[in-house]
């Protein structure tokens, strides 16, 4: 089997993740239930005309992908694969509002054109003049992992050597108000603000774009190797451990072989129990990492999780702010990521040091 390496990463998020090494400037937000983005200087990456035309998600996608390409020193790809849960929701809402507010009259096509879910992947391809394979996945919190899985298949099939993948989601005020109404986003920050010990339902929300350059060849910039990815639509809490064990087994590994587990804790008291069971039992004696207190939850927040895992692998260190427990490891060789949202769309991602 050919190998799949992460050779470059780029991330735009609620933390400063684009001109720092890791999360050395990370700050916990104690006032907002929707974490604002740290906005990059777009004009360093995109022409002024395009900046005005493009929605936030597209711009962030272009910045994050540019950063990943710069790190890996690659601009030609055999595939560009993206994932997005909500797609270009801002342009979609703009067009829908115009339809509803003006009774289907006086419409212009711009926001409709930009509202298509594959806009980010298409715009990147257009910019690079990349005519190769171009897919976009939209399946809740496995949107990004679907892209990752597809990329790994492409390399396994010998159909690609270099692939750009990313997870992008954006949020706007109206969607936030609907998500609050439906109880998806917490009404207010709990006091004390401790995501791991939340007592309320709903999550802290945000948005972001995270890209990775994957390649079948290792180079100086390589972060880690992607060993395997698995997605499942629905699992009972009690089924997760068994699924993880068989996932690891199919990769010739046991739970003891895992040096750290990256968990998708998001502060929803009901569904965080999926993670808690693992934290307290199977993986209680290994370092555990969480990250959504910094990134917020969104359908492709797990791409931020893989960004965190990549950085830990490269630095061989877990920053204090990410630690669920106080267990230490001298070396991080194999790490497992587990994510789900609302009890559905479960993903396991296995990476190793190289």
């Amino acid at each position: 089997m050919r190998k799949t390496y992460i050779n470059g990463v780029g991330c735009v998020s609620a933390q400063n993740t684009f001109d720092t090494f890791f999360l050395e400037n990370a700050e916990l937000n104690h006032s907002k239930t929707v974490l604002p983005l740290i906005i990059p200087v777009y004009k360093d990456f995109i022409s002024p005309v395009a900046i005005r035309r493009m929605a936030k998600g597209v711009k962030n996608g272009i910045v994050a992908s540019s950063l990943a390409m710069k790190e890996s020193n690659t601009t030609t790809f055999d595939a560009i694969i993206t994932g997005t849960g909500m797609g270009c929701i801002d342009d979609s809402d703009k067009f829908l509002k115009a339809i509803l507010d003006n009774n289907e009259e006086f419409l212009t096509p711009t926001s409709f054109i930009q509202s298509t879910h594959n806009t980010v992947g298409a715009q990147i391809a257009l910019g690079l003049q990349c005519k190769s394979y171009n897919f976009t996945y939209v399946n809740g919190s496995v949107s990004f992992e679907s892209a990752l899985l597809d990329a790994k298949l492409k390399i396994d099939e010998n159909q690609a050597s270099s692939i750009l993948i990313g997870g992008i989601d954006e949020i706007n005020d109206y969607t936030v108000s609907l998500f609050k109404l439906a109880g998806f986003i917490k009404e207010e920050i709990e006091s004390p603000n401790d995501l791991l010990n939340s007592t309320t339902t709903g999550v802290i929300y945000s948005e972001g774009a995270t890209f990775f350059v994957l390649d079948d060849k290792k180079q100086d910039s390589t972060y880690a190797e992607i060993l395997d990815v698995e997605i499942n639509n629905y699992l009972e809490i009690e089924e997760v451990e068994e699924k993880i064990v068989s996932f690891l087994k199919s990769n010739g590994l046991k739970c003891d072989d895992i040096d750290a587990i990256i968990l998708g804790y998001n502060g929803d008291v009901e569904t965080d129990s999926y993670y808690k069971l693992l934290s307290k039992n199977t993986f209680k004696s290994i370092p555990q990492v969480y990250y959504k207190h910094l990134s917020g939850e969104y359908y492709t927040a797990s791409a931020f999780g893989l960004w965190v895992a990549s950085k830990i692998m490269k630095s061989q260190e877990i920053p204090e702010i990410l630690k669920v427990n106080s267990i230490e490891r001298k070396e991080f060789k194999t790490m497992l990521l587990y994510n789900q949202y609302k009890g559905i769309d479960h993903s396991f991602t296995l990476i190793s040091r190289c």
Partner: protein
Amino acid sequence: MNKGVAITGMGIISAIGNTVEENYISLLNNKTAISIIENILTIHSDVIKVGEIKKTNKELSDLLQLPDDNNFSRTAMLGVFAAKQAIHNAGITSINEYKTGLISATSVGGMDVTERYYYDYLNNEETVKYISCHDGGDVAHKIANELGLKGMVTTISTACSSAANAIMLGARLINLGKLDRVVVGGTDALAKFTINGFKTLMILSDGYNMPFDNDRKGLNLGEAAAFLVLESDEIVNRENKKVLARVSGFGNANDAFHQTASSENGDGAFLAMQKAFQVANLKPEQIDYINVHGTATPNNDLSEGRALARIFGEENMPEFSSTKPFTGHTLAAAAAIEAVYSVLAIQNNVVFPNLNFKTKMEEFNLSPQTTLKNKNIDHVLSNSFGFGGNCSTLIFSKNK
């Protein structure tokens, strides 16, 4: 040639029928279903015609025996309807007996409910249950739940090529042994959102769509869902299953030209077809019928025609037709319903007509097949292209 992945079941609901059989009968009898829109209130109802499924949401929900307090979008209901048929057609009674996945496709997901309740959400508590229905994944989850499927479920959204890409991914997952069985296809319901979107792009016809005609004026939108069951040869052999046809080739490429328009020479389409031939290990002269994308917009048919001429040569084109005059352009579902039609063409050795064609396009010497034609069909090529330069080609072959 590459043996391809076995198709063992199909299900469909479109404007021309609620079953595979009904769709086939309509195709044989030139029974189109482009009509005046009834289920959506739009100011454009006098000037546009659509391929609408003449069932209300209530009728669909009753047919599916959904509980009264369900929160299914029309997109999800159409998808469940077609997917259940496909499972039944494949003779599957225990869905999780083998490692089974679902790869769905949709363009705007639950937009039909979002646009209906967008402002009501804030003051009508009963509508709040629909807030979670907007994203594409909700549709796939509802289909999986209704099928009782537990496993790999995902959704592709690359505009009008989405379902072709779902079929492609499914075939790859079977080829690689990642899944034993996979339900693949797409679903899209008509929505004010897409009607107005295409209207502002000025690519909606005010009459009946005329693919590959010099005087074509644009497309008719439609709604549909179709799903196919793909199974590994191991299952096929073990259970002695009937194979309807095989997915033997597939290719995806990006035109990298414009967000919504195709390049003049159809580079993306050319590359997608070229890749599909490589995967299938077939030559263009082995294709017996092409189900073209043929939306009847000035841009698509010119670009697709140029790409076809580059691959096949104007003088050597096999019979080709667009079936969109029957169904309308059903966006993310289009490639799935056309996959069903491609399989029907193979099973029945018949080329379906390209209706409404009168005058050859002046740019090239290509005339679609305009009447029903019986001939032996071993291989069908089906094209689907979408916004964002997304170009996909599938090749279906007779099971030998």
